[in-house]
């Protein structure tokens, strides 16, 4: 721990200030009562453009992103840069979709994507499937935020799990008390710190390394010298398809995650959402620069932390900061990553708790739950979810969480036909959607199972790049497994719908009307939500 005292002190002080803000947040924008999901879980559904920008940004650009994307660029080169086109593509892609989702959710009082599916397709079973998919995909994502904090702590020479447990206990306490207001308020600090750190990094570090030219040349030299077919400082013939499908597939998946929708539903009208879709790419620029920290680490000759004979490439950025910055500023940078983990972890646990409350508790356990019962259940479940995430880290190899996250991305994509296409068309039959979901999931798991990772010697679940040679093609080209799985899902959903219609299997009823998808703030239909009504 010696040599890192200044860093540690700065880190702890900033961390405590932010935790204090988390508790105070319950009094921010004063609600009369936090005892409903609208207040606790969606911050009163009244956030304007600025708060929404920080909230959605804080939600999508997580500590794990800051740590893992440059680590991937460091080890594999250009393919890791997929994170940039992914965040360029996503906003125009969902620009109109999310506005529709906002309207229909506010007319009907939906809190989760599964709420929407329940009403649209009249099928509790399909809604349950969507809710469980969301829960399963979100859990490892929360655990990954811990991996982000761990990377920073490791770089400061701190090992053991106690600091993580303390950090998460604090997080759990203020999320329990303040709900979505806590991450919304903290997101301001998180972003301010991250922008300062990144600006400093992209100006100062290249000046120390002889400019951008020599940084890229160092990266080129490194990848030219390695035999691996998938790496390189620009793409090669084999991984271009992977790059494109990974960027596009990730963009399709992003707003299917229940936690991204939480930020969207908390905004006060459609314009807030649309304006944010043009303002959020400001983060993409930061993300692109963060990704390039991986190349800076190559040029600076940074070595990731190795413990027990295992090299943890996730520590590459923290170690680079330690190497390049004065101690006090390294402390600020570490705090930025640490706090960057708290914001999304809080939103994700709230989203997961809302899923359980609305689509399992309310649907199957207590059909006549009151507002305050729902809020209580959600608060408790959000605690359970965080304990679960901590247990993931304590009991499992962190690498396992990373694998689960990879699987999570592929499985959340399987909710696209019900949730994403469902916003536009009621053509699909509920049975077809369930069949498509199951087939897509099976295909996705099978493909991920077949992907080895030669770098770590793993035989299965070694990445998302599925080799087309598995289908007998004579090529080294790879494609994003989630993309193919979604294709399987769509084909089965279409065929299933045709078959169910042909044999006249009863379909569910659509509780939404055409106009619901265009309603806006101030419309008579957009009311203060009646969550106690039956639907």
């Amino acid at each position, binding site marked *: 721990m010696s040599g890192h005292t200044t860093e540690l002190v700065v880190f702890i002080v900033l961390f405590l200030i932010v935790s204090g803000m988390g508790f105070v947040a319950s009094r921010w924008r004063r609600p009369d009562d936090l005892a409903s999901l609208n207040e606790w879980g969606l911050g009163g559904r009244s956030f304007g453009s600025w708060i929404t920008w920080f909230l959605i940004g804080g939600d999508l650009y997580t500590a794990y992103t800051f740590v893992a994307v440059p680590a991937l660029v460091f080890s594999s080169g250009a393919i890791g840069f997929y994170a*940039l086109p992914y965040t360029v593509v996503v906003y*125009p892609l969902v620009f109109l979709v999310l506005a529709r989702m906002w309207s229909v959710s506010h007319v009907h009082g939906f809190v989760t994507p599964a709420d929407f599916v329940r009403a649209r397709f009249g099928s509790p079973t399909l809604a349950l499937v969507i809710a469980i998919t969301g829960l399963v995909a979100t859990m490892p994502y929360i655990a990954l935020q811990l991996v982000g904090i761990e990377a920073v702590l490791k770089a400061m020479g701190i090992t053991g799990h106690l600091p993580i447990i303390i950090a998460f206990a604090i997080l759990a306490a203020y999320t329990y008390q303040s709900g979505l207001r806590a991450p919304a308020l903290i997101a301001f600090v998180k972003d301010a710190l991250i922008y300062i750190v990144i600006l400093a990094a992209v100006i100062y570090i290249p000046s120390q390394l002889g400019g951008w030219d020599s940084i890229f040349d160092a990266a080129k030299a490194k990848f030219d010298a390695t035999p691996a077919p998938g790496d390189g400082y620009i793409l090669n013939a084999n991984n*271009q398809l992977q790059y494109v499908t990974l960027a596009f597939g990730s963009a399709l998946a992003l707003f299917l995650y229940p936690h991204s929708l939480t930020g969207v539903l908390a905004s006060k009208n459609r314009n807030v959402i*649309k*304006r944010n879709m043009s303002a959020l790419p400001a983060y993409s620029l930061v993300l692109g620069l963060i990704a*390039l920290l991986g190349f800076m680490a190559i040029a600076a000759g940074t070595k990731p932390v190795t413990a027990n004979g295992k090299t943890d490439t996730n520590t590459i950025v923290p170690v680079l900061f330690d190497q390049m910055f004065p101690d006090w500023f390294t402390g600020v940078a570490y705090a930025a990553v640490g706090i960057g983990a708290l914001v999304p972890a809080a939103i994700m646990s709230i989203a997961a708790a809302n899923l359980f409350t609305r689509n399992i508790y309310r649907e199957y356990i207590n059909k006549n739950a009151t507002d305050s019962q729902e809020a209580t259940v959600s608060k408790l479940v959000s605690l359970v979810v965080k304990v679960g995430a901590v247990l993931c880290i304590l009991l499992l190899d962190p690498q396992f969480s990373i694998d689960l996250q990879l699987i999570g991305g592929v499985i959340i994509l399987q909710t696209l036909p019900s949730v994403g296409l469902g916003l536009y068309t009621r053509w699909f039959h509920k049975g077809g959607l369930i069949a498509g979901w199951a087939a897509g999931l099976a295909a996705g798991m099978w493909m991920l199972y077949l992907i080895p990772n030669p770098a770590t010697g793993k035989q299965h679940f070694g990445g998302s790049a599925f080799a087309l040679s598995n289908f007998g093609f004579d090529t080294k080209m790879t494609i994003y497994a989630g993309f193919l799985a979604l294709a399987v899902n769509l084909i089965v959903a279409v065929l299933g719908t045709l078959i169910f219609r042909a044999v006249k299997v009863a379909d569910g009823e659509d509780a939404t009307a055409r*106009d619901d998808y265009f309603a806006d703030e101030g419309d008579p239909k957009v009311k203060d939500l009646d969550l106690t009504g039956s639907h």
Partner: protein
Amino acid sequence: MTTGEPGQPRTDRSPWNWLLVLPIVLPLLTFLFNADEPRLLGFPLFYWLQMAFIVVGVVSTTIVYRMTK
């Protein structure tokens, strides 16, 4: 959002929406940017052109937002 005359059903339809296709398709055409030269401020084409696509995305979504408000 397009608010129609009273009595007319509302809609999100607008020819301006087609502008959203540009930033969706452009970053997926790897042949446009998968090269080292020409470099800009030391950045290979692969990196600076993709960063420039962010600007295309912002401009396109902003125009659509303003024209359909």
